[in-house]
């Protein structure tokens, strides 16, 4: 009989990790395009800089931000929102100057700046008479 061994992953999520079973939410975004580039703002309340990853690959900007809860599942008197991590991907339809993409996180607000590649910038063409 021909059997192929499949490696079994033996790591178990630690019970202390309160953030393990939290859902992922789509972060609300504002996007602004100006002649030099695109600015993206995302609401990621509770996210810390260490937990944020921003990747740009094949014309897609992906953002992931993880949240560490301050308390372990309290007995809520009132719960209007659920804690969760954030994840979102945008397809960017213009050439981007990949080397100069910059991101910063301020008070739970993530800002990503994607400068346009030279080829994508509008140029004024003088008409010769």
């Amino acid at each position: 009989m021909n059997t192929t061994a499949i490696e079994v992953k033996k790591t178990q999520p630690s019970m202390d990790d309160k953030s393990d079973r939290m859902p992922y939410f789509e972060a609300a975004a504002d996007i602004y395009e100006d002649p030099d580039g695109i600015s993206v703002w995302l609401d990621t309340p509770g996210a810390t800089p260490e937990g944020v990853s921003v990747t740009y690959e094949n014309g897609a900007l992906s953002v992931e931000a993880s949240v560490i809860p301050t308390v372990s599942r309290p007995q809520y008197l009132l719960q209007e929102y659920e804690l969760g991590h954030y994840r979102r991907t945008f397809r960017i339809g213009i050439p981007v100057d990949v080397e100069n993409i910059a991101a910063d996180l301020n008070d739970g607000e993530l800002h990503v700046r994607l400068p346009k590649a030279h080829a994508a910038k509008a140029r004024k063409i003088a008409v010769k008479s």
Partner: protein
Amino acid sequence: MVTTDFPMMRGLDAWRPSADFPLTRFFDSVFEDVRPLWAIGAAMQTPPVNLWEEGDNVMLECELPGVKAGEVDIEVSGDQLRLSVSRAEPKTDERKGRWLRRERAVGQFTRTIKLPYELDAEKVEAKLHNGVLTLTMPKAPHHRPHRVKLLK
């Protein structure tokens, strides 16, 4: 130009048990803008809060991304909590460019919350960290259990 998100990346699964039902997927892709309540953009008036008890304290958390300490005003009287927040617009040069998406709410809102206990107003503490407001509100002395010492 920014085109649509990947449909797979919709992040609301946790709230909709029917998310895996094919028709739900279909409707999601048709109505592109299905979002959690707090993210309906300008329509949102009051960010949601979570409230719980921790010993002699009532705790409140409220997500206020991008809000600075000076933009939050908190008032406590008796068992009422009044929360006023103003959130500024993102900084752009409006003349040069254009908005491709506006999902986040800006502007002002005020909310009054009735708490299950009267508070020790002087001792209420507020902290704004990473866009999350946390209030630690000690209950008024007459709501705290009185510990009786045993005579030896």
